[in-house]
């Protein structure tokens, strides 16, 4: 059967808004997170101790710590953006002004949550 469903126009055709920035970032962080979860499974559990030691040395380097902070932000962003989506799914926050405010809350809040998670984890 021929598929006549229209494809989404490429994101470049739209003028950027906070909502579109949050939306595309939500997708990108989602993919980063699932790759990170897979990497954690493979590096810490599937490949064994020798591989883990290599990963540990890498993660203790400056670049490694940057990766850890980046991942913490990625998860923080995903958590807040997911909560925003769930609230919108219940029918709240569709007004233009509210979407801008909640989008900003997600962006700024993700950095604050990153700090909080890092402090809680350490």
């Amino acid at each position: 059967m021929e598929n006549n469903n229209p494809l989404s126009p490429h994101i470049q055709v739209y003028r950027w808004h906070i909502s579109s920035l949050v939306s595309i970032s939500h997708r990108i962080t989602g993919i980063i997170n699932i790759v990170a979860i897979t990497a954690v499974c493979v590096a810490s559990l599937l490949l064994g101790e020798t591989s883990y030691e290599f990963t540990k040395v890498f993660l203790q380097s400056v670049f490694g710590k940057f990766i850890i902070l980046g991942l913490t932000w990625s998860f923080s962003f995903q958590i807040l953006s997911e909560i925003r989506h769930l609230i919108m799914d219940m029918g709240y926050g569709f007004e233009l002004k509210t979407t801008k405010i909640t989008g900003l809350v997600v962006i700024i809040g993700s950095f604050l949550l990153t700090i909080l998670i890092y402090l809680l984890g350490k």
Partner: protein
Amino acid sequence: MNNVTKKWVLLKVSSAILVPLMCWFIINFVGIFDKDYADVLGFFSTKSSKILFSLFLILAFFFSNLSISEVFEDYINDEKNKNAANKALQIFAIVVPLITIIIVFNLNI
């Protein structure tokens, strides 16, 4: 309830459960990433960690499977390519968590 509605409901239910599990995972990940191998295995060996991590893995891969298939729906027009991409995604979403969960439940410290 049609299939698209079912998919949407499953996405929303899994995301609502995933939010606290993501918090649990990332806080613990930050806490153990620079620890020794024995400490990491020790963490994964407790009963609560085994259950929460397994639940987290199943839901994370299930959720990512559903949401990435939406991206394929949006941007891939060719049915053959889309089906192949979805099949590869489904296999990945089953194999990785399954193998990891089996290993986690067989850990003995």
